[in-house]
């Protein structure tokens, strides 16, 4: 029900805003998003974006200085990193034995975590997206929990589960002689624990957005479920899998809290780059800055690679 305007006594019609007696119709046309069946638009040419920014819009008083402050607050530390970097002996710093070891270990652990996440996370995402089962929302909430959980808590929880006396760790130790804490495998486990949710939710969203009729078409051509998944579903969600994998990898690479709690800080086996940075900061600032620069470069690369996906030009 429309109500009378408290000031003007006018009843606004459904698609107009009444501003001081002047009817303003929004300038942006509403785009009917029923895609023309053929020819198909390429995804990159997608339906025109409703413009959300317009030149010369008047901001509420105080917004501009506050926004400038926010940008400065976010950018200044990164600039400091670049300014204070020991550019002259950067090559030497980069090739110092400790740095290289940490870098190599970080790559091994983070890629291992991505592999574990893909292996376990893709089937989970598929089930969450495609199968209606009891407790699906509960499962989804559990999966997302590590994203908001303080990583240190994750590390403690991992110790209680997979530690030598942990719920599953006890059994792992007895049955297979496997002990995860304070090993490289343990670092992989810690990183996968915090990073996998990013992969799961991204892939799930990709599966939901996909046109499932392609799977129907594959079935009518005689493809069983596994063939359909491998030859149709997986290629169609490849962009989502790529984005989820990159996000998962970036998170694993920067993981600190869970790793140091569960896997410790042993150079060469569990001391990944973030731990090395923290340690180096105590006695060798240049090494810390160098390692930080490397990680900043990696983060920037991920951001640039994913920019089309997350920040389409507006």
């Amino acid at each position, binding site marked *: 029900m429309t109500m009378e305007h408290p000031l003007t006594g006018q009843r606004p019609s459904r698609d107009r805003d009444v501003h001081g007696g002047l009817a303003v119709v929004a300038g942006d046309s509403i785009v009917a998003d029923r895609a023309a*069946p*053929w020819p198909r638009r390429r995804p990159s040419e997608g339906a025109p974006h409703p413009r959300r920014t317009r030149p010369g819009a008047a901001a509420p008083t105080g917004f501009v200085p506050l926004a400038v402050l926010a940008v400065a607050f976010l950018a200044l530390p990164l600039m400091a990193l670049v300014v204070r970097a020991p550019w002259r002996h950067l090559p030497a710093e980069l090739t110092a034995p400790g740095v290289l070891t940490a870098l190599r270990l970080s790559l091994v652990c983070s890629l291992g975590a991505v592999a574990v996440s893909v292996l376990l996370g893709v089937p989970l995402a598929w089930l969450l997206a495609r199968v209606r089962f009891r407790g699906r929302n509960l499962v989804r909430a559990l999966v997302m929990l590590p994203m908001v959980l303080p990583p240190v808590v994750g590390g403690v929880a991992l110790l209680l589960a997979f530690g030598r006396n942990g719920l599953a760790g006890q059994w792992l130790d007895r049955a297979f002689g496997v002990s995860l804490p304070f090993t490289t495998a343990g670092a992989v486990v810690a990183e996968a624990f915090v990073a996998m949710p990013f992969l799961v939710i991204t892939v799930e969203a990709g599966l939901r957005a996909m046109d499932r009729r392609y799977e*129907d078409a*594959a079935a009518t051509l005689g493809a*069983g479920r596994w063939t359909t998944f491998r030859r149709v579903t997986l290629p169609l969600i490849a962009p989502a899998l790529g984005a989820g994998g990159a996000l998962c990898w970036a998170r694993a690479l920067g993981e600190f809290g869970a790793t140091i709690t569960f896997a410790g800080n042993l150079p060469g086996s569990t001391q990944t780059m973030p731990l090395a940075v923290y340690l180096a900061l105590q006695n060798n600032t240049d090494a810390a800055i160098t390692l930080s620069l490397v990680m900043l470069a990696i983060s920037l690369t991920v951001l640039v690679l994913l920019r089309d996906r997350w920040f389409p030009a507006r």
Partner: protein
Amino acid sequence: MSLEARVALQKGLLDLDAQLTVRGSEVVVLLGPNAAGKTTLLRALAGLIPLSSGRVLLDGTVLEDAAAGVRVSTERRPIGVVFQDYLLFPHLTVLDNVAFGLRARGAGRRAAREFAGQWLEGMGLSAHAAEKPRALSGGQAQRVALARALATDPRLLLLDEPLAAMDAGARADLRRELNRHLGEFDGTCLLVTHDPIEAMTLADQLVVLEEGRVVQAGTPEDVSSQPRSRYVADLVGLNLFRGRGHCNVIELPSGERIVAADPVAADSEVFVVIPPRAVSLHRANPEGSPRNVWPGTAGSLDIAGERIRVHMTGSMPLISEVTPAAVAALRLGDGGPVWASVKAVEIVVYPA
């Protein structure tokens, strides 16, 4: 070659319960308005939606029997489907799209590609084998979709609105081409459309589906000359009424009476068709031979070829087809009261 199916299922607001029998290598066209359940019926036959009751028999083999709990999965049914917007796999080349079904059914990569290549050649598409589907025109995509479906040698081919995505200009050519390809296919073919021209030109048999029920089935000639629903009558441009006959008078639910030339079986439900060309319009109450005269109001006009169709509103809504000269002479464009008259001999009556 035969398909015998009774498909019953509920999906949202749709309550589908349709019986289909097809013998020989005919092209059966399923015609109906939007949301009649045509696509759902097709998907049920392909095994993409389970039946709540009924069964599907193809060449004597049970594909699905709800009562017996038998259900052959989609990938094991010898059924090819051409989907509405073709659904060519965007990440595969044209050749690999056509080879997909053969690969899925166990053929080796090389053998499948070779065979697919032959299909593309038959469709005149060899030049596009290495392209991705998005590079194809609508007509080419349709042929690739047809080749992909036929390459697996199905016994039943289902086509969902195969021409709906085409612009009007290209449709006639594509329809002829589709007709040729369907003629070469020796299995049973079921095609869904809401376009009456497509239906009339492609069908050996026509099945009209409305609100999930088959309202009429037969050859296109039968269906168009004796429509059994308002939808079909509108499609073929006839005035259709349903009423009860007494002697040669048919009484309509509205209370109006239609007088036919021939006697009708007493107290029976009948359909009455009045061709628009048989309806004459007058500005004054006509006198003389016609026994059917109804007053009304001249409504909208539209052009049909060299004639003009006048929609008369009132207790006896009728469409009349008159010459432009008559429209001018009677000033029908101004609306206002008119009388419609129809000779009894022009009226066609058949049992409901």
